């Protein structure tokens, strides 16, 4: 039988919905024309993407010299953006895999878009290791493939090779995990589709999914296995990213605390980005009953925890530098807090250590506007964290003769803006063509399925309907008369759907009115 859920718990879907209504609500936005708001957002993101394409083209055609780097500061915006975007991606996997393993059912309405966010963030991140190269057209040199140069392989001792394996594995596994999760919903879209083209596309993508329990059992097993694989994977990816720094010998980079510190920071920044996106999505798509205040609150709580870990790591770094007695270490950290880039350091501390403390207050946690503003500040803070680690460590290294300063050029800023353009363009396209909330999973946790709370009347409604027996159709006792023989898509089905749609339209309108006051 279905698992018992305490009636004291707040329901995960906060309003009574039948299964068909849930399908309808999630699928409808993809079946109508884009709204004006969507077009505005899309044009803005696409313009940013175009700017990014321009900046990257100039840089690839002219040389890395178009960036503000010098011989001392060899990495700055490029790797900052890389680590920033990878970190953003990690919250998606955390929600989809780690919370799945912990049986946190509240993840269901946000996991799909969080996973999409992971994919797009990893795409943005993956761009930087390629374009930061002096000769990006030779990026494939970093892959071990048989060749006629000896054969010359790659240096498996280099963290950049680990990175390449980690990020490509992460992207592939995240994409597969996402696609497997999409299968049942693609089938739902296929079965709702009215145009032949949509039917064919969703049909091809849904791989003939028919809801068979035999498939569901294997599917659930595979999903669990993928979650089990993705969990250590996500921890390994950011640990490996942190090893780009931790395995070097530069004071400020050369610390063993980096892997856990980076993973916590990644989750922290990722949740900030999930919140930013979800708060927009629940407003734009009218999914306030699917992405509830409870979801927002849970995510802010995770941010308090991970923000605390990050703050503790900042303090530990200073303690270790002082306790080590190593002059270079001590200098690297005093320079971080009081040197030429102290402003960046204090922005980082302000945004990452102080801002999450506001989330201790229930009033702030439950105020969507406040959470939205604070989540953006955390994103800023986490971007600066990577900037501080990379630039302040490099610009004052071992020999004062090589000390230098760094300032970004227009091209670098444009590239960063461009990645935001890429990210949001992909995200906006995603919510147009794929179900942004997992239909199947939300159904499984909806009150309707679990027989709790206000949904009883909905259940009774469907139960009261007379049994539509095969006998009637064959003209046997008390039938409604000569019905058409049953076919996979009977006319009766579409009639019912139309009725349902009408009812639903009125319902959805009413929701928006009542929820405006939330």
């Amino acid at each position, binding site marked *: 039988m279905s698992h018992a859920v305490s009636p004291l718990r707040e329901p995960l879907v906060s309003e009574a919905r039948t299964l068909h209504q849930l399908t309808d609500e999630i699928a409808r936005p993809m079946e109508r024309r884009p709204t004006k708001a969507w077009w505005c957002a899309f044009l803005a993101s696409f313009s940013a993407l175009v700017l990014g394409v321009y900046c990257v083209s100039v840089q690839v055609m002219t040389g*890395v*010299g178009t960036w503000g780097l010098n011989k001392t500061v060899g*990495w700055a915006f490029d790797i900052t953006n890389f680590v920033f975007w990878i970190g953003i991606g990690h919250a998606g996997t955390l929600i989809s895999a780690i919370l799945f393993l912990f049986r946190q059912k509240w993840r269901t309405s946000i996991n799909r878009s969080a996973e999409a966010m992971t994919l797009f963030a990893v795409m943005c991140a993956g761009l930087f290791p390629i374009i930061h190269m002096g*000769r990006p057209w030779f990026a494939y040199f*970093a892959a071990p493939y048989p060749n006629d140069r000896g054969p010359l392989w*790659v240096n498996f001792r280099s963290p950049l090779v680990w990175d390449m394996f980690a990020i490509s594995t992460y992207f592939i596994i995240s994409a597969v995990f996402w696609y497997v999760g999409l299968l049942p919903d693609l089938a739902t879209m296929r079965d709702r589709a009215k145009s032949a083209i949509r039917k064919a596309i969703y049909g091809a993508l849904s791989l003939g999914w028919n809801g068979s329990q035999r498939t569901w059992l294997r599917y659930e097993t595979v999903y669990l296995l993928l979650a089990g694989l993705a969990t250590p994977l996500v921890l390994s990816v950011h640990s490996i990213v942190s090893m780009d720094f931790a395995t070097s010998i530069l004071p400020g980079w050369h610390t063993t605390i980096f892997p856990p510190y980076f993973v916590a920071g990644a989750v922290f920044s990722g949740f900030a980005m999930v919140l930013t996106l979800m708060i927009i999505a629940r407003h734009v798509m009218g999914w306030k009953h699917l992405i509830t205040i409870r979801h927002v609150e849970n995510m802010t709580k995770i941010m308090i925890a991970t923000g605390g870990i990050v703050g503790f790591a900042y303090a530990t770094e200073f303690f270790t530098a002082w306790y080590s007695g190593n002059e270079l270490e001590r200098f690297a950290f005093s320079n971080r807090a009081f040197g030429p880039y102290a402003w960046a350091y204090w922005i980082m501390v302000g945004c990452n250590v102080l801002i999450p403390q506001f989330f201790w207050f229930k009033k702030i946690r439950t105020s969507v506007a406040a959470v939205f503003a604070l989540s953006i500040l955390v994103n800023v803070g986490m971007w600066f964290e990577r900037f501080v680690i990379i630039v302040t460590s490099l610009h004052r290294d071992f*020999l004062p*003769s090589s000390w230098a300063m760094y300032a970004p050029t227009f091209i670098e800023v444009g590239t960063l803006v461009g990645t935001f353009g890429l990210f949001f363009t992909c995200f906006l396209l995603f919510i147009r063509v794929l179900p942004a909330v997992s239909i199947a999973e939300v159904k499984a946790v909806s009150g309707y399925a679990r027989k709790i709370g206000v949904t009883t009347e909905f259940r009774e409604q469907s139960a009261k309907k007379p049994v539509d027996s095969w006998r009637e159709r064959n003209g046997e006792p008390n039938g409604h008369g000569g019905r058409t023989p049953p076919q996979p898509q009977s006319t009766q089905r579409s009639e019912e759907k139309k009725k349902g749609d009408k009812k639903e339209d009125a319902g959805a309108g009413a929701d928006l009115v009542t929820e405006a006051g939330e």
Partner: protein
Amino acid sequence: MTCLHCENAPCETVCPVLATVHSSDGLNQQVYNRCVGTRYCANNCPPKVRRFNWFEYDHGEPIERMVLNPDVVVRSRGVMEKCSLCVQRIQAGKADAKRAGRPVADGDIRTACQQSCPAGAIVFGDLNDPKSRVAALVKSGRNYRLFEDLNIGPVVSYLTKLRNPGSKEGV
């Protein structure tokens, strides 16, 4: 400062494509046509001796081309470069000795910096040959290596300045 040709070179470990490796001579080599230009090696280089080709530098002028050393490849844009300890002279010296059927003698090979230093402050030779001039200087007691605390094992080392050579306290 020049490349120290560290024995445990931090730049080599981090290069993803094996564009900088150690030769059997003990040189830290930079392979320009393999380099993809991640600049990780430069970031990890304590003395920051590596230089990056930020742009394609134009050498189209025929007169300008005449000052380029024909023995040294012109590095293209996007690759890292650094002191090679005049690997072209080392190879030439070794080839000459081989043609003459004898081992390379101390002083056969002179690096360009050594050759052009009027004060003769730069000495190049085989550290493994106990009779070489450079080996004697390294053992002289005036020798020191940079970044010894990092255990990177620089092969290029320096001699301290002599102060008060008459008194016994000085060194």
